[in-house]
């Protein structure tokens, strides 16, 4: 089967159109297209068509923590969530700090075939924060790394950060910073504020994020390089990025679905499923990141999908791991918080979850481009979502190998009905569809 005929779906929520996918490309979009011979017909009535989603911040855990997730299970979860590409964070074991490891992850992604996997390279050797990793070798490798991050740890040393920002200019790279001043967050467990004071958990102050962002935007300006701020979580961070952009600094920023939806009030029950880094913040911060996403201060939504096996969350709060899954609920959270509230259109969703992350990660050109418009001649990366559907989140029925969804039991709008990766359905009728070996290109 090389052709699909999507009948009557609404591209970016607009007028219903027929969309023809042939040989990996969008052959045509229009209301008068005929079904090509041999094409499989997909009923698109009531569905919104989006360009395949791109996640700039995913933890696939392989190599090293295959008990939490593998490249295969993580990318299957990505496909189920409507993603056609994910950027795989570097904090694996071994760390993705050499050409060999990033090529291994890239190859695993290619073999699994659920979504394009773009490995992120570590900034420093072993995430140690002392010596630059071989950024050039990773950039030149088959994995073509353009995004570098010590995520999980902050590139704290200002000299190392400056050197990294400068060095990646040679290949148009970007440093994605996990902004967390380590000394201000020693032993930190949750947002520092009213709730932490009352429930007695060590605080992670907003200033620990904001101080690093302030420093980094100034460094990026000074050396004329690109900075990307990972999982921005505070109102003050939004203000800083807004200020930096107004000054012409080449800075981009992301917010996670959980920071768009949840607050630190959820920590009150000491359920470690709500333990995440950076922590859930206050209602004022949630409103600020929503407003920042609307006005373009925040460029993208990225999941920070961080799977953990059950035992890492089945314990007292302080002993639990940081992180939550997100690939399969991201689009629903964005629909609930931004679209259903009237603050963003589906075209905006396509921008913040597909076009902009692909552009930041420098994967939006070439024959295997991601984040392209829905238009004839473009790669057939298409996600069909039913915005009228509602479902209760059940981690046991998700594709990710880990159960740590903070949205467990919550009813959310939107359901991914189909995901096409270069014309091949990775999800059809809402179910993942394993590729045949010869289908994987």
């Amino acid at each position, binding site marked *: 089967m090389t052709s699909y005929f999507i009948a009557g779906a609404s591209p970016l929520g607009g007028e219903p159109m027929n969309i023809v996918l042939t040989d990996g490309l969008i052959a045509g979009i229009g209301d008068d297209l005929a079904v090509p011979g041999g094409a499989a017909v997909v009923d698109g009535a009531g569905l919104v068509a989006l360009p395949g989603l791109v996640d700039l911040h995913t933890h696939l855990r392989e190599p090293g923590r295959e008990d939490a997730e593998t490249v295969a299970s993580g990318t299957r979860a990505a496909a189920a969530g409507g993603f056609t590409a994910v950027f795989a964070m570097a904090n694996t074991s071994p760390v993705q700090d050499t050409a060999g490891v990033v090529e291994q992850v890239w190859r695993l992604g290619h073999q699994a075939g659920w979504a394009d996997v773009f490995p992120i390279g570590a900034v420093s050797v072993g995430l140690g924060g002392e010596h630059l990793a071989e950024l050039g070798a990773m950039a030149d490798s088959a994995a073509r790394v353009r995004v570098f991050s010590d995520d999980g740890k902050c590139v704290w040393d200002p000299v190392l950060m400056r050197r990294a920002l400068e060095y990646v200019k040679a290949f148009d790279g970007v440093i994605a910073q996990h902004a967390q001043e380590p*000394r201000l967050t*020693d032993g930190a*467990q949750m947002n*520092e*504020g*009213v*709730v*932490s*004071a*009352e*429930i*007695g*958990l*060590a*605080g992670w*102050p907003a200033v620990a994020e904001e101080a690093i962002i302030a420093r980094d935007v100034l460094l990026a300006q000074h050396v004329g390089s690109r900075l990307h701020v990972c999982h921005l979580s505070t109102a003050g961070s939004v203000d800083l990025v807004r200020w930096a952009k107004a000054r012409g600094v080449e800075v981009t920023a992301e917010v996670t679905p959980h920071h768009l939806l949840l607050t630190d009030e959820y920590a009150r*029950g*000491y*359920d470690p499923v709500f333990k995440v880094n950076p922590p859930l913040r206050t209602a004022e911060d949630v409103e600020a990141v929503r407003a920042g996403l609307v006005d373009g201060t925040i460029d993208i939504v990225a999941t920070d999908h961080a799977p953990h096996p059950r*035992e890492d969350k*089945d*314990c*007292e*709060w*302080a*002993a*639990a791991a940081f992180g939550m899954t997100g690939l399969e609920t991201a689009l629903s959270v964005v629909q609930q918080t931004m679209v259903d509230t009237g603050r963003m259109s589906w075209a905006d969703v396509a921008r913040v979850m597909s076009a902009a992350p692909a552009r930041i990660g420098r994967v939006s050109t070439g024959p295997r481009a991601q984040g392209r418009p829905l238009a004839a001649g473009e790669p057939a990366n298409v996600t069909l979502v039913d915005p009228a559907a509602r479902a209760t989140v059940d981690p046991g029925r998700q594709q990710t190998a880990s159960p740590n969804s903070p949205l467990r039991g919550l009813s959310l709008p939107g359901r991914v009905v189909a995901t096409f990766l270069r014309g091949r359905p990775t999800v059809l009728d809402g179910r993942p569809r394993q590729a045949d070996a010869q289908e994987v290109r």
Partner: protein
Amino acid sequence: MKHLLSTADLSRSEAVTILDTAAQMAATQERAVKKLPTLRGRTVVNLFFEDSTRTRISFETAAKRLSADVINFSAKGSSVSKGESLKDTALTLKAMGADAVIIRHQASGAPHTLAHAGWLDAPVINAGDGTHQHPTQALLDAYTMRRHLKGEVRGAADSKGVIGRDLSGLSVVLVGDVLHSRVARANVALLHTLGAQVTLVAPPTLLPVGVDVWPCAVSYDLDAVLREHQPDALMMLRVQRERMSSAGGGFFPSPLEYSRLYGLDQRRLDMLPGHAIVMHPGPMNRGLEISAQAADSPRSVIVEQVANGVAVRMAVLYLLLAGTSGTEGA
């Protein structure tokens, strides 16, 4: 009341009931035969992940005076990083048929998790968790304050005349490391519920960000508070010496400076009204937060706090367990 996890969960009437029950328990402890048959056949587990001989012995004594069987389960040394041990321990205790679990843990919220994670059905009593809560300490403090400050004669001990009363109208000042103190959090919530006016006094570094919404006043100036509030009770919190050498060079410059600004010495003792009592949850750092003179003065009820602890813990065990049926069908 199924568990006792936080004083913030207690209503005024629940708290007063515990204090009244403690008074009845205390009365039985004046008899020659102290042991009551109330919890015969019931098994109470002392689950201590953190060393505290004082608290453990107090709970053990309370349980034994109610004729319960006590199992001391010391899990100290199981580090926080091996967190699953809490679950495994809970499953073990369930299999052993524990009727109540008293837990002390270095992690805030561990008793809450033990009570609500579905590992265990038994009532859970928080014997101190991290920097969160220590409800029985606050209850014994309230009990002590009520005895001395709400009877016929202020400052004189009275257990019977105070039955049914709360702490309304009392002014209570807590001094010291509020940031790291579960005793402070437990006391602020309970004292507020019982109607007392609470003032916290500490250097700004030892107050949590977010303290401004607590139901109490906050001051950095102990002398001014003593002068202006003329408190009925003054509680000195323990200052751990390692707080002087932690990140950022410590929370205060030196023990000497701390004592000078926040310690209770004879001069400050003399500033208190005649009936006022001096309290300390122990163990004391004599010479740091409290001078020997103050600790041993007639105003000090610190030793009595320890004795009252047994009565209060008997009351809590009684109220949580006596109404339920034991696994042995006692």
